[in-house]
């Protein structure tokens, strides 16, 4: 190739022709294909495993994945070694922080060191109270193995809960197996559960009966058109919204001889928990 072959000055060569000759067109197509391929890969990579939880203050998953730069500052700042960075192929977005409650749960530090240095706001700095964090929601998944459901007094998940008697309560129920014993059933209340995972971590079973799941998997959503009568009533000074002049319809099929409403039959004996 001689030097004279190249135009040193004057008009540049036809740009379309130059695009072809330099291989730029192929490069552009390849780059587009890589981008499209990565896009479809990214949707697969977002099928997160159910036991991987995000740190406190994490934005909703889709926003989190666009915000987190995978620097690991939260991992470094966690004093309990709870947080880890997701490895390749974990389905979490490689390099993003997560924790598994069964391994090391969140200790719910009141000063939240993990989100203090987050540079992008993937961990929302507006979260000022760790009790408002919603890392997930505890769900008593397996009632067949939970010792309390079997009638024992394990209560461990209830006792380790940082929001004891709020996030987990023990609900008293009669044990139908003996008819004379009670069962105290651990019951989670989403209004208070931060998803710290202490309960799952502490569950004495070989495989935890209570597990913390990401909110998207743990929580149902009521249609917006539902009205809860008791709440409406409370907002209406205790009065029914239907008014007083409702016609009372007879209840058919449950009448007693006296014609009054049905009442449950009395218990056989005295019932003790």
């Amino acid at each position, binding site marked *: 190739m001689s030097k004279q072959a190249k135009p040193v000055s004057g008009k540049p060569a036809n740009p379309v022709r130059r695009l072809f000759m*330099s*291989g*730029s067109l*192929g*490069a*552009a197509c*390849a*780059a*587009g294909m*890589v*981008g*499209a391929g*990565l*896009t479809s*890969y*990214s*949707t697969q*990579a*977002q099928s997160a495993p159910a036991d991987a939880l995000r740190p406190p203050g994490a934005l909703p998953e*889709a*926003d989190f*994945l*666009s*915000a*987190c*730069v*995978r*620097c*690991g*500052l939260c*991992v*470094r*700042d966690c004093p309990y070694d709870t947080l*880890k*960075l997701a*490895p*390749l*192929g*974990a389905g979490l*977005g*490689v*390099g993003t922080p997560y924790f598994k409650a069964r391994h090391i749960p969140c200790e719910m530090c009141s000063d939240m060191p993990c989100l203090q*240095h*987050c*540079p*992008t*706001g*993937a961990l929302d*700095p507006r979260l000022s109270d760790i009790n408002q964090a919603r890392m997930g929601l505890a769900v008593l998944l397996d009632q067949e193995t939970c010792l309390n459901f079997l009638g024992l007094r394990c209560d461990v998940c209830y006792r380790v809960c940082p929001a004891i008697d709020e996030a987990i309560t023990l609900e008293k129920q009669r044990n139908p197996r003996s008819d004379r014993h009670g069962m105290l059933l651990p019951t989670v209340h989403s209004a208070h559960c931060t998803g710290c995972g202490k309960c799952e971590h502490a569950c004495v079973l070989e495989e935890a009966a209570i597990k913390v799941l990401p909110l998207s998997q743990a929580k149902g959503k009521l249609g917006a058109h539902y009205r809860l009568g008791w709440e409406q009533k409370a907002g209406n000074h205790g009065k029914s919204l239907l008014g007083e002049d409702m016609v009372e319809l007879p209840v058919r099929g449950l009448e007693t001889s006296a014609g009054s409403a049905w009442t449950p039959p009395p218990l056989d004996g005295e019932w003790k928990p």
Partner: protein
Amino acid sequence: MKRSFLLRERFLILRRVSQAAILLLFAFSGSLSGYLGGLWLLKGNLSASLVADTVPLNDPFVLAQSLAAGHLPELTAVIGAAIVIAFYLLAGGRSFCAWVCPVNAVTDSALWLRRRAGIKGGHAPAKSLRLWLLGSVLLFSAISGSLLWELVNPVSLLQRELIFGTGLSLVLVAAIFVYDLTIAQRGWCGHICPMGAAYGLLGKGALLRIRADKRDNCDDCMDCFKVCPEPQVLKPVLKGEGSSIIRSGACSNCGRCIDVCEQQVFRFGHRFEIRSQKP
């Protein structure tokens, strides 16, 4: 007479020291903090970090992906990226590639082995691929709403691997080694890596540049062409009629040409025409 070994390899040695020191600081600042009253010298990784628990640093390319994906970052990240951009505007954009990036050591080794084993040929994609990839990655980050290149970015994967010690992503880095060794000479850093391309854009206006001020001494030994990772930037300044300053963004300021040139044609200097050196 040949110059001493240290003089002939000084920038290579300095670069390896720089690359290793940064990774080691990231990895062991925690252990060191015990002796420094709890102070972390360097915390985080190359994507974002905190120097001495105060100064934020953010990789501009990674942050650009996040921006494209639709997240407006906190001020900390913006300041961090501004500091990094300002630094590389002074130090030369792709100096990141030569002085910081750990993949550089991988691809340099691949090239060394390629030469040693006498592997020739193969096929390298167009030099412009990295720029197309840069654009494509940002575009598709916007479409997918995630930091697309960070799913596979071997630079991020390798440094995170070395700093945090997790997972299997070294497979990707091994793939780059094999690709550079057998298929494309300097394939990854020279043709594909969009992160390097992003830093290359910064380099177009960077202050610290390599100058061939003494190009009249050149004896056409071709040593610099053999070692230069982007040899296309050498010809115009060495043989052309125009400027003797390498202003191309592709130059990574690795200083290898300064190392190998027995005639001492090259030196580090600023990007302006005026000669700052003594006659």
